[in-house]
């Protein structure tokens, strides 16, 4: 297997967008190709993350549609679906295609258009990322599953409501610095703590945003990368693991086994330790999910993850900033786009192009993308070059 690098990154602003699902994908692809200085016909394979095009806007089979709209040739176009990890899976398939020597230039994108559906309809569509037969049928939504998880985490590990709420305060503070974020404003601790309850103990500000948006990156072999971009970003690890989505099947609902497995595999591939990571994009679909992921990835001991945001360690300026983009919480969570948007943010950071939210001297960064209630996890570790 050969080394793979990112030579282009593109994104649309996240939020309520007028463009169609396909057009959003095409815009991000063209942005990434422009950044790589490549014409569309140079791309040899296209991988697209999308969760629920059919359910949200009545359109399936969108990989060749986005490819056509972006001007790609008659190349293999493949859609990946792994709930909220769809984008991470697309990234991993692209990395494998280039690493194996199958292709030299691969385009990866992720897209979702969610805001045209009503909120309760969206809740039901998202609930199908869990085990419908034993969860959605009983009335569980994703906020409800993470409400159950949060309650148990508080009970077992002493995590406080305040620690959980601090994740939202931090990620909104970061999102305010990201011109592509869906919500670019601060929220205060009392606003989060006293917000309208959604699924207790979680309230409105503990939940990620329902957004439209797309992101894309261009990959090529590392040995060719410097000819295409002055600051290529190297993919140091690409790992994926799985578990049952149903909470009732899990021995421990305060950890996600798929995250632990994918994290271990990623650090092993990269030959790096936790201390080497300068910043991370972590899948904060709900505030408590960021805390759990930080524990599962080994950045904090079990039950200590709440200290990250509370004590400022994961804030810009802290020891390891987490979700400088604003995360799913403030940047927004167009489900299929999220995994690729994380890679986009880290690419900017490792090139030193993240402006007001730049982590000084960032050299190693980790992306954690979780599907549903932990049934799929993709972890990527990226490194700056030069």
């Amino acid at each position: 297997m050969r080394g793979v690098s990112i030579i282009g990154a593109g994104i649309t602003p996240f939020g309520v967008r007028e463009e169609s699902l396909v057009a959003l994908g095409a815009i991000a692809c063209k942005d990434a190709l422009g950044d790589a200085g490549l014409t569309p016909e140079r791309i040899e394979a296209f991988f697209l993350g999308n969760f629920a095009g059919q359910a949200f806007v009545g359109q399936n089979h969108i990989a060749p549609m986005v490819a056509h709209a972006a001007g790609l040739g008659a190349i293999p176009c493949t859609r990946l679906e792994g709930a909220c990890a769809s984008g991470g899976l697309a990234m991993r398939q692209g990395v494998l295609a280039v690493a194996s020597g199958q292709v030299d230039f691969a385009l990866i994108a992720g897209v979702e258009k969610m805001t045209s559906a009503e909120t309760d309809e969206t809740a039901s569509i998202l609930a199908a990322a869990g085990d419908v037969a034993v969860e959605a049928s009983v009335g569980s939504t994703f906020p409800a599953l993470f409400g159950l998880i949060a309650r148990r985490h508080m009970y077992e590990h002493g995590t406080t409501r305040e620690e959980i709420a601090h994740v939202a305060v931090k990620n909104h503070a970061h999102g305010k610095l990201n011109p592509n974020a869906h919500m670019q404003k601060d929220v205060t601790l009392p606003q989060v703590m006293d917000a309208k309850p959604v699924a207790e103990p979680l309230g409105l500000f503990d939940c990620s945003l329902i957004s439209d948006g797309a992101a894309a990156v261009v990959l090529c072999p590392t040995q060719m990368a410097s000819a295409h971009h002055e600051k290529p970003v190297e993919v140091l690890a690409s790992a994926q693991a799985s578990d049952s989505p149903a909470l009732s099947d899990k021995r421990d609902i305060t950890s996600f086994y798929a995250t632990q497995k994918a994290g271990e595999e990623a650090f092993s591939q990269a030959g790096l330790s936790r201390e080497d990571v300068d910043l991370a994009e972590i899948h904060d679909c709900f505030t408590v999910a960021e805390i759990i992921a930080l524990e599962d990835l080994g950045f904090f001991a079990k039950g200590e993850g709440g200290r990250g945001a509370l004590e400022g360690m994961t804030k810009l300026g802290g020891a390891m900033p987490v979700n400088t983009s604003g995360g799913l919480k403030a940047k927004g969570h167009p489900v299929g786009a999220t995994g690729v948007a994380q890679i986009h943010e880290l690419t900017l950071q490792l090139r030193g192009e993240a402006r007001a939210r730049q982590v000084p001297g960032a050299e190693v960064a980790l992306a954690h993308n979780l599907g549903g209630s932990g049934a799929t996890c993709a972890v990527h570790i990226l490194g700056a070059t030069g």
Partner: protein
Amino acid sequence: METFFCAGCGRIYLEKSERCGHCGGEMEQRPASGRGIVYSFSSVHMGAQGMPTPYFLVLVELEEGGRILARLADDDESQPSIGGKVVFSGLSDTGPVFRMF
């Protein structure tokens, strides 16, 4: 109360079926006390499409082992707590229902 246990994947069902809905394994019928404890719970205020809110979801750990996601009975006004005792009260359109006791 009877439970239906899949020897293949360990899932527990309260409704009889020939095969496990998850893995297709063969089901074993087992008597159960219907008692369990609350493993976790959440009061749902913004629910799924067509489901009136609020309602309590409880993840129940059955006395005989295994966990089931269920509703707390709508007319049960007691506040659940982790470790609190619950008892099976019946099946509804939304699956199993338990009560605090």
